[in-house]
């Protein structure tokens, strides 16, 4: 009975694995990374995963961790699937992680109410629930450095400047092609509000998640409507397909703007015609920074990374690095505040609230000029930082603008309404009980 033997072996192996679950030494900090190197979004997820992993690994190799405490970095593969993401969360919960990064809005949403109960802060960097920027309502959720509303207001501002003033937008038509999900629909109210006030027209082109790779009907409509500008809110394969489709339908690429998610590969998929495509970004591309050189030296050259050398410095790789920079900074601040070496999730929550990445600190970290300053506080978990516009020149992204400040007052109205709405809809949403640190 080979089958019986096999099943017996399987059971035995399961029991063994159950007892031999890795026990973590108390002198390390456990940082789980939710990544997706498989599935339909792997094209974006792999670079981010590499960036996140490599920066933290570099801290381990170069400095022996943070504040002398080694980091235990563990990846959990989510495949961008909510099911697996929730499973990952349950799997890491018991090992007292100091922070989780869901890297998917779908996974972030179920975790938000749990964060305060499980005392694990959530870092959803510029995605997730925009309203969670309000630290007084969502003490455990962080989404720096900008919300999607900030992003939208920046794009409109940039377009306005190009036209010679926001009042020149009157009578123009702006197309908005977006993923038909909460993420893509979020900026619509703000866009429509601005359209009403500034007198431009909005045409919406929703792309359902299952048709991300087939956008011919949307671009056909765009061809008919002839919008003066196109703005895109897409993710994964949707970005590359949109660029390709835009080139094919002959849309002028210099009038095509996107939020911060398209990668080099997405732009490349449009071929030579994609030149002129623009997107927002808040950190530099390229590897000309001491910290990134250290990643090359200590991690990539030693074969400790999954990334190949030429991928270091690409936009999404650096986005992963930025994400890990925030984690590391949160841990470092937590150590500073509490005086402890081995910090917990509760400490890191305080640490993240006290993040102060000014020029001096960035220089210290070897990332001078990598990104704008970022200061978070008890009430502001986002920072609402300025981003800049970058243009695809056919081979790489080129920064073409100074930092564009978001229209803070407009964003604030949306934000307050959304936060209030969320707390109201979830009757019994707990009031913030976590004390604010004096420094913030």
């Amino acid at each position, binding site marked *: 009975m080979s089958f019986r033997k096999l099943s017996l072996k399987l059971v035995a192996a399961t029991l063994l694995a159950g007892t031999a*679950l890795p026990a973590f030494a108390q002198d390390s900090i456990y940082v789980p990374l939710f990544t997706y190197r498989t599935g339909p979004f792997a094209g974006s997820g792999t670079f981010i995963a590499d960036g996140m992993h490599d920066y933290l690994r570099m801290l381990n190799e170069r400095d022996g961790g943070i504040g002398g405490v080694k980091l235990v970095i563990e990846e959990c593969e989510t495949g961008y699937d909510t099911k697996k993401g929730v499973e990952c969360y349950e799997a890491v919960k018991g090992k007292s992680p100091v922070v989780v990064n869901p890297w998917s809005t779908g996974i972030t949403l179920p975790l938000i109410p749990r964060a305060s109960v499980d005392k694990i802060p959530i870092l959803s960097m510029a995605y997730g629930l925009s309203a969670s920027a309000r630290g007084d309502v969502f003490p455990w959720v962080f989404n720096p450095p900008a919300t999607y509303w900030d992003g939208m207001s920046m794009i409109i501002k940039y377009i306005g400047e190009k036209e010679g003033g926001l009042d020149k937008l009157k009578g123009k038509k702006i197309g908005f092609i977006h993923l038909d999900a909460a993420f893509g629909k979020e900026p619509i109210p703000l866009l429509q509000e601005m359209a009403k006030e500034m007198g431009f027209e909005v045409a919406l082109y929703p792309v359902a998640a299952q048709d991300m790779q087939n956008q011919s009907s949307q671009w056909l409509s765009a061809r008919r409507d002839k919008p003066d500008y196109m703005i895109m809110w897409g993710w994964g394969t949707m970005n590359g397909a949109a660029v390709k489709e835009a080139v094919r339908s002959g849309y002028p690429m210099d009038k095509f703007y996107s939020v911060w998610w398209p990668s080099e590969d997405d732009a490349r998929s449009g071929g030579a015609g994609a030149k002129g495509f623009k997107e927002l970004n808040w950190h530099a591309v390229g590897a000309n920074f001491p910290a990134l050189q250290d990643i090359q030296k200590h991690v990539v050259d030693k074969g400790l990374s999954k990334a190949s050398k030429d991928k270091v410095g690409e936009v999404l790789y650096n986005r992963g690095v930025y994400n890990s920079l925030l984690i590391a900074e949160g841990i470092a601040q937590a150590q500073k505040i509490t005086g402890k070496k081995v910090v917990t999730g509760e400490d890191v929550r305080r640490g993240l609230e006290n993040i102060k990445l000014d020029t001096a600190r960035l220089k210290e970290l070897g990332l001078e000029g990598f990104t704008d300053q970022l200061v978070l506080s008890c009430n502001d978990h986002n920072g609402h930082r300025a981003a800049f516009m970058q243009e695809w020149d056919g081979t790489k992204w080129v920064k073409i603008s100074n930092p564009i400040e978001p229209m803070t007052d407009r964003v604030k109205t949306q934000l307050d309404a959304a936060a209030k709405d969320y707390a109201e809809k979830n009757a019994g949403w707990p009031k913030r009980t976590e004390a604010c640190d004096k420094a913030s």
Partner: protein
Amino acid sequence: MLYREAGQFKTTYVSDASIFPLREDRTGLILIIIAAYALAFLGNSFLLQAVMIPFLVFSLASIGLNILTGYTGLLSLGTGAFMGVGAYACYKLMTAFPGVNVIVWIFVSGFFSAAIGALFGLPSLRIKGFYLAVATLAAQFFLQWCFIRIPWLVNYNVSGALDAPLRTLFGIPIMGPNATPQTRYLLVLTIVIVLTWLASNLVHGRIGRMWIAIRDMDLAAELMGIRPLQTKLLAFAVSSYYCGVAGALMVFMWYGGAEYDVFNINQSFFVLFMVIIGGLGSLIGSFFGAALIFIMPIVLGIVLPALLSPFGISVGADTIEHLRFMIVGALIIFFLIVEPHGLARLWQIGKQKLLVWPFPY
């Protein structure tokens, strides 16, 4: 040796017609139920929250689809959407009437999904086989479209997502982030046991025989006086009821919040595979299928690194994921070749072998 028919005499028609004629089967079932309840106090939170609750939820959904596909022979690809209807209905009901206990709403939400299911089941009278699958596929896409486009369904939530508010039973939180995995597991387990018992009574009774008659040959069934339309619609309604309750449990007892995207076509296929692997037309097969398709990858995710690490091979999370896919896929093919009628058939064969063991006859 322990499993023997000998010595058990049936003296009434009732005992002869019972579902579990063997004493050993009955005690076994009771032991399993006791063990399942005991698990709530023995298992850790990962086991309960990430393994057992989803397993029970998917078992319930599989029972739902099995009633339609296994017992009545109507292929459906709309399971995910029907689960969604249950979840959205439950959300609307419990936010509109917060005073009523949420358990009531979980059961009631199934009726909404049953109504929608019956509506989309109407074409089943004329359309058969693969063509019906395509018709239910329309339900899947249409309903999913509704979930995105009708903000009323989520109470005009900006996030566009469902989330589980705090609800209590006798002062103990049973829903929302404060509910412990233990209480949620107990609740889900009880609901699944009650509904499985109901389903068992349905499929073994007159209605179940009508369904089976329709499945085996609808023309003959019609000639015997079974009305095809009513019977098929009933199957759609009951099946969707189970899927709806499973959907509500999935969002509010397991995830705690979800976007429309969890009810996509993949979910439908996921449940369909469970039904096929587990065994068409078998309730216990639904549990087997859910276990194989859902729990097996989790076990592999834990076992594989533990098996490989002694050899000094450390593999990344993504490699494990690829391996999971390959192994689960291979196992599915293996089981389908060894026993095309699913795991339930294997179970049955095993029991028959055991009855005569140690003799081969």
